[in-house]
């Protein structure tokens, strides 16, 4: 599934300079930045290589780089969107970037979702909390060519209502007739005017009971959620091979050299971040 080339770069560790053109607060501590390339050549390179699922290293000089997915789809390559939770040194300083500020981006790296293989199939997207961004890039890749797919179901849950990200897009999806959107929050996380479900993602998924027939599932979320959702998907009759997920690990280089992102023998940065549940289940659990 690898799709890596030298990307025509001279120094593979030198990032591109990006300008912040939009900034959105998604949830407490979670922000989305829309970035535009400053160097047209870099942009061309990105457009040539980027496919949904790939990730990048976003950074600020003086602070460092941090790895997260490209949250915008391959169908919209004029910019890059990234959504992140403010936790460490880099994300804190990215979070304080204002419109017009310059940041850096290195990528795209890693493998992709084989979206062509999903043509003609029903799609089930399942995401938890801050893991909607990787799913969202697949969702939009598919919605932007909606006619190529069957039924689209999105199950998204967060701890509390405030923790749901991309609220404006959730509203948009809610209003579309060609998507079934199931929203849920953990018990106790609801607000007084919450009109959707209350419960953990796996049980809500089981209630929604999408059919496994001719269906591909894309599942992203915190490890505990993944673990239990996979069980639920199994109960619903999904084959591990038709369930896609993404893995994250700490990375520095993004290109398979710095030595820290491997799970067992698998380098997330080069062989991932997109894996089928079948592939993940072959990895040593003690290394995840």
């Amino acid at each position: 599934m690898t799709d890596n080339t030298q990307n025509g770069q001279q120094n593979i560790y030198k990032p591109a300079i990006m300008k912040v053109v939009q900034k959105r607060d998604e949830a407490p501590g979670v922000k989305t930045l829309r970035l535009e390339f400053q160097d047209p050549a870099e942009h061309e390179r990105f457009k040539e290589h980027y496919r949904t699922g790939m990730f990048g290293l976003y950074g600020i000089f003086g602070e460092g780089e941090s790895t997260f997915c490209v949250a915008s789809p391959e169908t919209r390559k004029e910019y890059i969107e990234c959504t992140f939770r403010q936790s460490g040194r880099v994300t804190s300083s990215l979070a304080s970037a204002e419109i017009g500020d310059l940041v850096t981006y290195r990528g795209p790296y890693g493998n992709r979702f084989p979206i062509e293989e999903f043509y003609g199939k029903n799609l089930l997207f399942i995401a938890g909390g801050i893991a909607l961004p990787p799913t969202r890039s697949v969702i939009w890749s598919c919605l932007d060519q909606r006619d190529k797919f069957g039924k689209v179901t999105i199950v998204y849950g967060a701890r509390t209502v405030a923790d749901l990200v991309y609220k404006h897009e959730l509203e948009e999806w809610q209003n579309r007739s060609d998507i079934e959107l199931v929203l849920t929050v953990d018990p106790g996380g609801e607000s007084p005017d919450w009109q959707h479900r209350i419960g953990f993602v796996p049980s809500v998924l089981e209630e929604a009971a999408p059919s496994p027939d001719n269906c591909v599932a894309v599942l992203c979320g915190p490890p505990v959620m993944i673990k239990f959702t996979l069980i639920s998907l199994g109960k619903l009759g999904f084959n591990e091979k038709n369930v896609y997920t993404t893995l994250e690990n700490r990375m520095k280089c993004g290109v398979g050299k710095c030595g820290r992102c491997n799970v067992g023998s698998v380098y997330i940065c080069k062989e991932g971040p997109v894996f089928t549940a079948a592939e993940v289940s072959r990895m040593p659990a003690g290394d995840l």
Partner: protein
Amino acid sequence: MAKIGVFICHCGENIGAKIDCTKLVSAMNDHPGVSVSVEYKYFCSDPGQENVKKAIREHNLTGVVVAACSPRMHEATFRKACAEAGLNPYLCEIANIREQCSWVHTDQDMATEKAIEITRSLIEKVKLNNELQPIEVPVTKRALVIGGGIAGIQAALDIANAGQEVVLVEREPSLGGHMAQLSETFPTLDCSQCIMTPRMVEAAQHPKIRLLTYSEVEQVEGFIGNFKVRIRQKSRYVDMKACTGCGDCIQKCPQKKISDEFDCNLGKRPAIYTPFAQAVPNIPVIDKEHCTFFKNGKCKVCQKVCETDAINFEMQDEFLELEIGAIVVATGFQIQNTAMYGEYGYGKYADVITGLQFERLASASGPTAGKIKRPSDGVEPETIVFIQCAGSRDPSKGVKYCSKICCMYTAKHAMLYAHKVHGGKAHVFYMDIRAAGKGYDEFTRRAIEEDEASYLRGRVSKVWKENGKLMVRGVDTLLGKPVEIAADMVVLATAITPQPDAKEFAKVVGIGCDEYGFYNEAHLKLRPVETATAGIFLAGACQSPKDIPDSVSQASACASKVIGLFSRDQLEREPVIAVNNESTCSGCWGCALACPYNAIEKKDILSRSGELIKRVAFINPGLCQGCGTCVTFCRSNSIDLAGFTEKQIFAEVMGL
């Protein structure tokens, strides 16, 4: 990146004439993260502040640097202006380009360069400033006064008279303290009990004062406005509600040979007793140690004679947990044990006594009903020698400090002696006469001139008994001659020292003390009644030796501090306090030891199943004063100080 506004004040000519402000403005405009940089003649003026506010709104600023006079001048002004424009006031920093730049440097270029660097470094700091909120602490409006001597009573009454609740705790069975033991008081020679007893009664009957005698404070937790105090009420074995104070039990008690502490062991008392006749409350206690029933299991005479069944041998100590907003510590002093002055014969010769014992002899309520009689045989002494500084100002044997009151009370004793023993001769050995105070020097002069006390400047080297007389050998340094006086009685002006348990008690309350055990004030000059622990105040001789007027004024000062504190429902404190990162803390407790305010406590981190994972430091925001000593101590860099964080200072230095 941030959006910082930089406001450069000319301060008229003060800054403008020495620093090229236009250059400063353009340098700041070129600086990354600066959205706007402007100059103005007086930013502290109303239109100047308006400029700042307008810029905050227009540019949606995330931080403000005002390059102007010292932050000690106008930091508050500009922070307030920021707040009015909707910017958190703690996102404003002042670059001091007047006091520390334009006023002190002569070279314009270098001064301008310095102003640029100072301002730039503060821009870097302010970018990392956090929005801080003043800390609001609720106040429990109930004061605890520890110690029922004159200082404690005064503080309690002042607070109670202002309408606030007071809990007054005294460990002895009665209020009164040392002042109740005194005969007359200097410099007016009015009777101590006459002025003291009404205050005691007033305190006991005050509707706002809850009096807990024969009680001790065992534990103090919490912080200003929110202390939790545990008090032990020792069992008196006498039901306070039932007892009428008739005194029958005291009269009938068969055990009457107990040395009377109140009379400094010059008299005797029974096993059930009140310390003195005017005791408040007038309810006896049973001295368990000497009571025949407690010793032998037989007696119970008191119980038999009591008509109200107030005697209860089964009584247990009781504990009270009280919520308290402020604490006044007025635990008083003791008289130094003079055992180390073996050459003066105290303890060896019955007629060598301390000043406090002399007070009891001179007191109308004392063991001799106010007649000066020597303890050995009850004979009136014809010649009496007073030795001052028997312990004070003597680093080798006694204490280094001056006990402050001995000069005065010795003069008083000499006068009382002259008044009571006609024809008697009083000699006073002294080092210096320290009589500063209203009417004090006149008082000592009177002792010498009117009452003809003989003052000899010099130390006494020895006291011994010869032919029924106490021979006192000393030196008169003014004459340069040795002197020997055959006396009938010798009175030692012993030093005033802290209570024997003062140091342990300081730990209980959570305040500091000096090497002797006198409690430390927050600042000797500017905050003499506060302790370093916010909300705890000091009154009387527990802080240092004091006479009655000083103790009373300090007590009233404490009361005013407490009343001031209680005038608000919430306390607002600067949010400059330390915060610990519990995930990286190793729990070595060095910070807790280093903290001058005992603000750092141990906190258990438990797993979901309730097991102890680790112990970390927790910095109580109510107690922390924000000095940052713990931050610097912390090896793992886990503690940080809001307003002066490690990141801010790092940026400030890197921006220089």
